[in-house]
């Protein structure tokens, strides 16, 4: 669907400001009531979900007048979808979709962000979203003697993802995942150097064609290899394979699981036992694209029924962020002996973003860290010693915030804790 197709949704915005805050029942005090990093940081209403819809609707009506300020607004958004969840508590309308379409249109019209252009140039050259990626994608697995899923029959393809593959600091996540899968006796493989970026982050940045190219490459490889199940530890990758590929009818019957879901299944089936004690007080950060944006795509085509109500034929089921992956990571954490899990104020569908999404990590790292610092502060307020997440991009941004703020909080990916427990 194009931006024009969301005209009715945008016109539904009543400018109530619900998109700025967590759903009202969930406001637990003065602190941590905000849900949108962009409006929280930049304050002008234009940076809120509603403001973005107001602007896009106006431009559809009056023509697209691109100014530097407009592009500042467009690109200073993590596309985290929190605005939509809060709005959709009460309203039946799309919020993130038109915001996303507006960004796609900006890119289509050549109104891009230089920093993001650089990242995309890198993607086109190296198949990776990590700027300056060098070396082989599968280098992290050297000496591990893992199966090559492109050549050997495996039950599960472990899609490692760009950041974990190319940033040596995060090789530990891939290696932890390997240990866990091996311990559970899973017949898995990796694509190694044949793996390429899922394209999800390119889509968030507005580069739809690049996303589609990546998606087609990945699915061609997957089909050729006969892979039926894909497991990834990257929330961006999870959302790309599961939601975006499905949206563009590219996913086929591929089963897509996040590593936290898969581990939860292995534990439930008795294939993985977490025996070792990990004495740690932790809190859990829901990655946006595993949580609210990780819920399945709903294929729908219909028309507004003329009349007083904003209703459709056939009825439209909105994706309100409720069907994301929330319980499996929590179940896994709770399964680890010795761990105490304390929840933060903003969790699950109304979780506060880590700051890394939507290209903000690359185009405005200061804003990304500002956002992550707020999360670190919220995590520390629970009394936890560590914040656990389930995405390398979150871990990286949260680590940067910890460094900058001088916090003593530790940051872990869920696989690191599971690795300690097996």
């Amino acid at each position: 669907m194009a931006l024009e197709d969301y005209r009715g949704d945008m016109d539904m915005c009543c400018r109530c400001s619900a998109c700025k805050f967590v759903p009202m029942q969930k406001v637990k005090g003065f602190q941590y009531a905000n849900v949108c990093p962009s409006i929280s940081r930049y304050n002008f209403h234009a940076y809120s979900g509603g403001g973005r819809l107001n602007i896009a609707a106006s431009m559809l009506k009056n023509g697209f007048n691109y100014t530097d300020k407009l592009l500042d607004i467009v690109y200073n958004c993590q596309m985290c979808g929190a605005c939509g969840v809060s709005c959709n508590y009460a309203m039946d309308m799309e919020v993130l979709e038109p915001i996303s379409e507006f960004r796609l249109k900006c890119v289509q019209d050549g109104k891009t962000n230089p920093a993001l252009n650089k990242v995309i140039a890198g993607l086109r050259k190296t198949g990776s979203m990590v700027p300056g990626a060098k070396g082989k994608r599968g280098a992290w697995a050297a000496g591990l003697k893992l199966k090559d899923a492109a050549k050997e029959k495996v039950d599960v393809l472990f899609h490692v993802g760009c950041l974990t593959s190319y940033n040596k600091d995060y090789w530990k996540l891939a290696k932890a995942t390997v240990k866990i899968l091996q311990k559970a006796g899973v017949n898995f493989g990796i694509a190694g150097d044949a793996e390429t970026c899922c394209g999800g982050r390119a889509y968030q940045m507005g580069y739809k064609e690049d996303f589609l190219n990546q998606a087609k490459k990945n699915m061609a490889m997957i089909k050729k290899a006969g892979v039926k199940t894909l497991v990834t530890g990257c929330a961006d990758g999870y959302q790309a394979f599961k939601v975006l590929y499905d949206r563009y009818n590219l996913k086929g019957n591929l089963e897509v699981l996040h590593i936290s879901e898969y581990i939860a299944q292995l534990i439930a089936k008795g294939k993985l036992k977490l025996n070792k004690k990990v004495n740690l007080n932790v809190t859990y950060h829901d990655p946006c694209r595993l949580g609210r944006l990780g819920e399945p795509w709903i294929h729908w085509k219909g028309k507004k029924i003329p009349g007083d109500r904003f209703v459709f034929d056939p009825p439209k089921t909105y994706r309100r962020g409720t069907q994301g992956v929330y319980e499996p990571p929590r179940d896994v954490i709770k399964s680890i002996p010795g761990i105490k899990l304390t929840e933060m104020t903003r969790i699950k569908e109304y979780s506060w973003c880590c700051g890394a999404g939507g290209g903000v990590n690359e185009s405005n790292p200061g804003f990304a860290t500002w956002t992550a610092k707020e999360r670190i502060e919220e995590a520390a307020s629970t009394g936890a010693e560590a914040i656990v997440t389930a995405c390398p991009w979150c871990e990286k941004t949260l680590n940067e915030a910890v460094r900058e703020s001088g916090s003593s909080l530790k940051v872990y990916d869920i696989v690191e804790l599971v690795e300690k427990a097996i």
Partner: protein
Amino acid sequence: MALSKEIYKAFEDVVGAENICDDPAIMPAYHSAELEAVILPKDTAEVQAIVKLCNKYKLPFRPVCTGWTGMFPKGTIYLDLRRMNRIIEINEKNMYAVVEPYVISAQLQAELMKRGLNFCIKGAGTNCSALLRGHGHMDQTTSGDDRNHLAIEWVTPEGDIVRSGSLGSSDEWFCGDGPGPSLRAILTSAVPPGVTPGVFTKAAVKLYHWPGPPSFPVVGKSPKYTLSEIPPNLMARYYSFPSVEKMWQAEIALGEAEICYELMGFNAAMVACNITTCNEEEEVVFEKMSKEVQGPGFFVIIAGNSAEDFSYKKKVLEYIVRKAGGKSLKTVEDPEVEGILLCQCIRISASIRETFRAGGAFNSIPIMGQRDLTIKWAIGAGKAKEPLIKEGYIVDDGGAFFGWGVEQGHLGKTEIFCKFDPQNAVAKKAVEDWQKSQTARAFKERYFASTMGPQDEIGPALSNYHLWWRKLVKELDPNGVTPEGGALV
């Protein structure tokens, strides 16, 4: 229309480059008004400096909080008060809270509930400012509008800082009327234009006892948050009655008995909005509930201070309702539905569902006064809605009105609205005509509707208040920098 470089620089020097913008790109987010600039002051001193500059350069300005409505004359300086979002004080002993304009009611209420306190929240919802003005669901206990105003810090249209009530003579916020200047009639005008010129930068609001839990045990996921259990000594019910007269009889008796924490005269359509998660479901539930009710009704929350108090209140409620021939709606007796309503109607978190979800817009006529009389007017306004429903211009809510008791029924408010699709020009015009004609009827029949106007028409019937008001405004605002209209939500 852009500000000159000199003027822009003068404002920028006050708030910093990051907090002023005149780029056309942001204007659609500000009601598509042709504004000179949007400025984000962070405190009273900055507001004062901005207002003085507005006077110096003869620029009209208007302050706005979360701001879902507003009319802005061309060339207005828009003061977005978003950065003024601090709770200054919660005084438990003297039962008041001092807030800045962009503290939303949800934040203040959450802090208050932890302390066994609550306050009057505007019916517009907890997503709106906690500062001043407005009636809402809990008026039965918390009263409404200017009854809750204590001391106020006010930047006048000329840029002077006036501290009203006790704040005028000391650092205390406990009273709006003294020792110190009261200014109640100027600061809290309820008649058109309904907006005080200048900027309220801090205000104390009255607090009330909250007998419920420090927080609700909310479980589930948006858009269906429920309660894991009904907190002790709390109950929500909806009662329908055989006639308006019987309903009113029960309302009066309940007010006299002082047993209801909340008495909200929802119609079935509004209950359906509250308990459903989408438009389609709402239509189905409304149809079902329309068959379930026997006539007009209201929603009640009972909150006991102890098990004994709760039991007493429940017994009195049941007795009064039975005597008036009332019938409890089975749908609301379901603990899940009861929990949803308890939470939403205390936390005022579903007003958007009640108003905007269906079609995107609503036009309303609120009438203040004795409920039995205002209901009679509302029945007529409801009948006038029927042709619009028939034409498909507005959502079919059975032509119903709603309302609530204020201060245990000593006062009351009745309201009626039409929900419609604002993109449908014919429907919009029909609704506007309905609003105009029914407001005129209210005026003619000597009711007070806040939609009444213009002042020249209604003023003569109200002691020529408009002439006095204009004289006051002229004194307060000699440079004419505070245009009429708008709303501070």
